[in-house]
């Protein structure tokens, strides 16, 4: 073992260079990217879907479903790991047993370079989605019913849109669903903005039925693409949600 250098001296970025030269480092980066890119979207999608389903009137069973989805959050990681090591045991694990019943050959899971990461991702999703489900559920339950009632026949197909009202939900949400409608949903919340429902409605304007292009999801922008492929801004005064809010009494 080399003795510690008596006086430290400046080596600039050499340590970083050494790290970038190490193939193991890039392997680790790749694993991290795969893990994050695979885990977070699935966790969030599952959480949001479950929250929407659980927001429905389900009677007493609602509690059962909620507990089943949430309990993994309360289990220490050391114990959760044990549960899954047992389930994923290649020889006598439950998962391989049922896969065999489906005619799928034995997978070594945690002992296999290709399968270890997916196995860990499944564990992570199982452990975490219940927590985010609760956050979404809280957001949905804080949503005024009137907003749901009005938004729904107007093309807001899921109450989750309203979860955007909630900053905690919105943070996770904005990354997942970029739809034009969100853009003005957010604007609507800002008093004085062009979409502000408090602006008086012109008597000749009538609420109208949505037509298809407006409902196409467009990544990241508050506009749809027109038939000619150019970005088409939606005119604020033709905003159907806005109309629905202002002309609520006459809607439908």
């Amino acid at each position, binding site marked *: 073992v080399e003795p510690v250098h008596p006086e430290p001296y400046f080596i600039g970025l050499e340590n970083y260079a050494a790290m970038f030269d190490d193939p193991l480092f890039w392997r680790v980066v790749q694993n991290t990217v795969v893990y994050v890119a695979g885990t977070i979207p699935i966790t969030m999608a599952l959480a949001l879907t479950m929250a929407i389903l659980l927001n429905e*009137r*389900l009677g007493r069973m609602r509690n059962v479903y909620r507990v089943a989805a*949430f309990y993994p959050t*309360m289990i220490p990681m*050391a114990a959760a790991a044990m549960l899954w090591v047992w389930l994923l045991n290649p020889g006598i694990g439950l998962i391989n047993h049922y896969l065999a019943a489906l005619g799928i050959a034995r997978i070594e899971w945690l002992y296999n370079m290709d399968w270890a990461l997916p196995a860990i991702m499944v564990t992570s999703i199982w452990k975490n989605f219940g927590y985010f489900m609760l956050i979404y559920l809280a957001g949905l339950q804080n949503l005024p019913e009137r907003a749901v009632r009005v938004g729904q*026949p107007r093309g807001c197909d899921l109450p989750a849109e309203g979860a955007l009202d909630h900053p905690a939900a919105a943070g996770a949400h904005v990354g997942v669903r970029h739809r034009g409608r969100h853009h003005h949903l957010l604007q609507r919340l800002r008093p004085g903005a062009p979409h502000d429902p408090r602006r008086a409605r012109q008597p000749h304007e009538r609420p109208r039925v949505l037509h298809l292009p407006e409902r196409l999801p467009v990544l990241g922008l508050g506009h749809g693409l027109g038939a000619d492929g150019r970005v088409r801004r939606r005119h604020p005064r033709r905003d159907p949600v806005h109309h629905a809010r202002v002309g609520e009494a006459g809607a439908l």
Partner: protein
Amino acid sequence: MRSRSPTLQWALHRLGLNRLLLHLLLILVSALTAAPYFWALSTSLKERRDVFTAVPQWIPTNPTLQNYFDLFHMAPFGLFLVNSIIVVTGILVVQLVTAPLAAYVFARLRFRGSGFLFALFLIQMMMPIHAVVVPNYLTINALGLLDTRVAMMLPFWASGYAVFLLRQAFRQVPRDFEDAALIDGCSGIRFLWNVLIPLAKPTIIAFSLISVVTHWNDFLWPLIVTDTPAVRTLTIGLAMFVQQESGADWPVLMAGTVFVTLPLMILFLVYQRKFIESFMYAGLKG
């Protein structure tokens, strides 16, 4: 809590799903998420020969508690349990003294540097535990507290998170209440005790549950500051037990796993509403 969501009905209607299908779907998901724990519970109650059957026994044909007795013979899980309880309650009790006092100051009093001090509390909230493990270890070492239960509790006695949650709750109490109380000769501390704390009860319960769950399940910090089994908590005890067993005796390993989680799971099942509401509440505030 809203009981009916017309939007979803409409969406389901559009998707051609009815309520029965909705329940079936939810039962399927619930069964899948519940299966790992249920399987561990079932394994822990089996005799060794029933573990490797051709058809998995979800419900043991010969249920036995023998694995739990073996577990207690092989490692001092009773002691781990006591340690966990001491650590968790020790943290919570001190937190419930320090946090309301600090929160009261930040919610009601203006003084030079109060904004800066509060920012320091918020920084503590945002700092991941991994970032402060080494300096905290050095501090605990300098205090000569390594390998004690106090070492596991000390860093959490002043919780920025608790102060933040309580400050928000206290600030919602109208100032007039306090003015009226002060005019009638009520002291600040008495106002805190008799008015603010009762009004902030939901916040206090929410924080308490989260604190208990967090520290019951904590792994890294107790692992770093303990060396001897005598002071170890359940999570560390389980990890060490798994290592020394090198994993062949599945029924006993699962008995250990279930035993570590059981106290919280029972609490959770009994007070599930409180737990779920607390996590929702804190998730939105925090």
